[in-house]
């Protein structure tokens, strides 16, 4: 188990190197450089040349990348080319905002979606199931930034119940969490419904009922116990998606998070900042996926025993 986690983490190093190279190369190919955003009317040719050499822009991309990678391997993500603040300080300052937003959205989503999914599966084929499915479908189709703006219009501008932007209190979390969580509700509900329906056809449920297990316990223990795994995958994926795609909802609510930081960095051609944010976000994303894998093992004895027996027996994912 420990060995498996260690392997997964080691495998992550080549991925990070490739990802940084891709982002670096792409940012280099983009028309315009960081210097172009600083040039003013009164600058002379020499000033511009000085700036170019300051950012190593007179050297080929591969040299800059080598330098960056060297620093990265020593754990130095560099500093923003615009503000001069270190990437780490900027990121770690904003990360909690993004993380709490994502976690709260997920909690909100899961709290509503799992009961809804269970009910939809229980009443499969009836009007309740159809209504739940239709709402879930609508939720999946609704652009989250639009929902965010709608909530903003109603609850913040008209009714003035919640603030329109981040102010550090719990009240400012409400609207973004709802806007972010709505799409999650939709997809987790659908996943819950379909995996419970899958499990319901299994024979061990009949066995459980035959030996007199009360229906409530059949649902919570036997059905849910086995339907968990695909649901957890879906939840893990949703967490990854919100962590990585937080830019949109953060823009709507002027949320001081990582997504907003990345949008700024990319549009201002701040390669170091953009790269750093990508690395850190991708790391967080992969850690979440690893965590999901470990949770599987914790809840599914079959998987746990496959790990315990060592590498040879491990089923390829």
């Amino acid at each position, binding site marked *: 188990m420990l060995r498996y986690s260690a392997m997964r983490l080691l495998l992550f190093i080549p*991925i990070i190197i*490739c*990802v940084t190279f*891709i*982002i670096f190369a*792409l*940012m280099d*190919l*983009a*028309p315009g450089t960081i210097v172009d955003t600083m040039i003013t009317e009164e600058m002379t040719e020499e000033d511009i040349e000085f700036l170019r050499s300051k950012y190593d822009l007179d050297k080929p991309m591969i040299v800059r990348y080598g330098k960056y990678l060297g620093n990265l391997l020593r754990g130095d993500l560099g500093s923003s080319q615009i503000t001069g603040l270190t990437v780490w300080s900027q990121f770690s300052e904003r990360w909690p905002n993004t993380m709490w937003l994502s976690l709260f959205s997920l909690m909100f989503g899961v709290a509503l979606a799992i009961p809804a999914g269970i009910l939809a599966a229980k009443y499969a084929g009836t009007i309740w199931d159809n209504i739940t499915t239709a709402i879930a*479908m*609508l939720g*999946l*189709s*609704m*652009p*989250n*930034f*639009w*929902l965010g*703006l*709608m909530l*903003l*219009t109603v609850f913040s*501008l008209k009714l003035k119940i919640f603030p329109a932007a981040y102010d550090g209190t719990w009240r400012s979390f409400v609207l973004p969490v709802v806007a972010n969580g709505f799409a999650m509700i939709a997809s987790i509900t659908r996943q819950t419904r379909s995996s419970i329906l899958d499990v319901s056809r299994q024979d061990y449920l009949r066995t459980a009922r035959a030996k007199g297990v009360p229906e409530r316990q059949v649902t919570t223990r036997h059905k849910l116990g086995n339907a968990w795994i695909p649901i957890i995958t879906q939840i893990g994926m949703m967490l990854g*998606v919100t*962590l*990585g*795609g937080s*830019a*949109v909802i953060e*823009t709507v609510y002027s949320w001081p998070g990582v*997504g907003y930081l*990345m*949008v700024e960095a*990319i*549009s201002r051609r701040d390669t170091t900042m*953009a790269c750093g944010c*990508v690395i850190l*976000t*991708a790391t967080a*994303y*992969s850690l979440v996926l690893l965590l999901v894998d470990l949770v599987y093992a914790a809840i599914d004895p079959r998987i746990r025993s496959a790990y315990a027996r060592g590498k040879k027996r491990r089923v390829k994912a």
Partner: protein
Amino acid sequence: MSSKVKTQSMISSQYQRENQLLAVWKRLRTNPGAVVGLIILCALILIMVYSVLFISYEEITVINSKNRFAPPSAEYPFGTDEMGRDLMKRIFYGSRYSLAVAFGSVFIGMVVGIFFGSIAGFFGGWVDNLIMRIADIMSSIPGTLLGMVIVTILGANLINLLIAVGVASIAGFIRMARASVLTVKSNEYVESARAIGMSELRIIFTQVVPNSLSPLIVTATARMATSVLSAAGLSFLGFGITAPKPEWGALISGSRAFLNYAPHLCYFPGLFIMLMAFACALLGDGLRDALDPKLKK
């Protein structure tokens, strides 16, 4: 002689395929969700055709300062925007972008994904490993971010937005195509194609891919919904089709400054994005049931 046999088998396989399509269509028709999705999608396509024929770009960009922020009325069903332009016409005009993104980006992702995914699944070994690790890397970069970077490099226009959204879907299609090729490739007809001397590449693209297509079609249709949403999101962030072009996401972005006194500028474009994604999602669900009757009990 051999050519005659070939022609015959081609005719019969074509006949079978038509028969299959008809059966799928019959099943699809009985699914109310799929029918609703299809109707919405057709309506949106009709709106696009109407806008291409009757709404000129000048008409939707010309400034009419007398009519600013008119609320929805009989004359302007969706109201007018901050420059007095008819919002309904702008939204209708914008339908072309969303439809193009829905079909175009998924097409890009599907073609590239099927190509590499089927090669990976069919050959296995180091080819498989290489392609799948690349897919892993691609999927460890968040899609929104990759899209922003690609649009920044290539420039903000429709084609580049298509590419940006399409690239983000490639990894998914590679995995999907690989998985379905793996299940198909051990069938007897692949063996017999090899026996009559078909080249490996030809086997992949004439025997294996067509037979593993149905899960891919389902994914593609469902993916269209996601693509519409992420393209709108990118445009909303300013990395996509930008004002004055009336892309729906860009329209919502433009409405942010006037939410207080002209919320209708935000309502309508969002409703249309939602309709479009909803139609694709419904159709995807319906197709899944229609293509795989085993799933339905």
